[in-house]
C-alpha cells in the first residue's frame, strides 16, 4: 500500500470502518511509514477533541413537555372522534 491509498482509508481506520483486508494493509503501511502513522494519530486526536469538547446541550423543559404532549394529544383527538362517531 502507498501513502495515497492509506489516506483514502485514513478516516475509516479512525472510525473502525475498514474491512479486515483493508485494515491489514493499512496498518502494515503504518508500520513502515512514519508520516502516515503521525497523520493517523492526529486524526484520532481530532476526533477525540470533537467528542469531548463539543458541549451537548440539554433540550429545554418546554420542548420536552410539548413532545410528550404531542403523542398523548393525538390519542385524545383520536378518542374524541370515536366518541362522536
Amino acid at each position, binding site marked *: 500500500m502507498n501513502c495515497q491509498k492509506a*489516506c*483514502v*482509508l*485514513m*478516516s*475509516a481506520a*479512525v*472510525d473502525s*470502518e475498514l474491512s479486515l483486508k483493508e485494515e491489514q494493509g493499512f496498518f502494515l503501511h503504518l508500520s513502515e511509514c512514519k508520516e502516515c502513522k503521525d497523520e493517523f*494519530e*492526529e*486524526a484520532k*486526536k*481530532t*476526533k*477525540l*477533541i*470533537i*467528542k*469531548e*469538547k*463539543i*458541549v*451537548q*446541550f*440539554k*433540550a*429545554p423543559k*418546554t*420542548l*420536552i413537555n*410539548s*413532545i*410528550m404532549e*404531542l*403523542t*398523548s394529544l*393525538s*390519542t385524545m383527538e*383520536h*378518542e374524541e372522534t*370515536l*366518541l*362522536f*362517531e
Partner: protein
Amino acid sequence: MDKPDPTRHVKTRTKKESLSREERQKQLEFQKEAVVHLNSLYNYALHLTMNPSDAEDLVQETYLKAYRFFNSFERGTNCKAWLFKILKNNYINRFRKNSKEPGKVDYDLIKDFYHSIKDIQNDTSEAESDYFHSLLHEEVYQALHSLPEEFREVIQLCDIDGFTYEEIANMVESPIGTVRSRLYRGRKLLREQLEGYAKKYGINTDNHQ
C-alpha cells in the same frame, strides 16, 4: 352522524377501547424508540440553525411528522438515524432557503449564540493531555462551524452522534466513499484550525509524539 343513544354507546365504547389500546401501544413504542433521542435531535437542530427557538420548532415539527409516519419506520433499524433524516429534510425545506450562503460564517453570531445558551453542564472530562488540552469548548465549536457545511456535517454525524458510515451515507445521500473522503479532509481542516488556536496560546504544536 347519529345522535348518541344508550344502546349504541356500549358498542362504541368497546371499539374505542380497543383502538385506543392500539394507539396507546404506538405511543409507548414511540417514546421508547424515538423520544429518547430528543437531546441528540435538539443539538443537531442547534448546529443546523444556530438559533435555539428555531431549533425547538424544528425538533417539534420532526417529532410531529415522525409520530404521524411512525408506521413507516422500519423496525429494527436505527430510529435515531431515521429521525435525523426527517429533521434534516425539514430544515432544508424550512430554513435553508433564507439562510446564509454555505461557506460564509458569522463568527459573532456563533459567539453570541454559544454564550446565550452556555449555562449548561460543563464537561469535565478533558481529552488526554496533549497540545489540544487547553483549547476551550467555544474554540472547538467555532472551528467546527468554520468548516464548509459538507465537511462539518459528516464530522458532526460521525464524531458527535456516532452514526456508522452507512447511516451517514444514507443521510447525506452520497456514497460511502464520499463520506470517507469528506471525513478525512474535514478532520484535516479542523486540525489546522485548532492548531491555529493552540499556537495563539504559544503552545508548541510540533512537539507532539
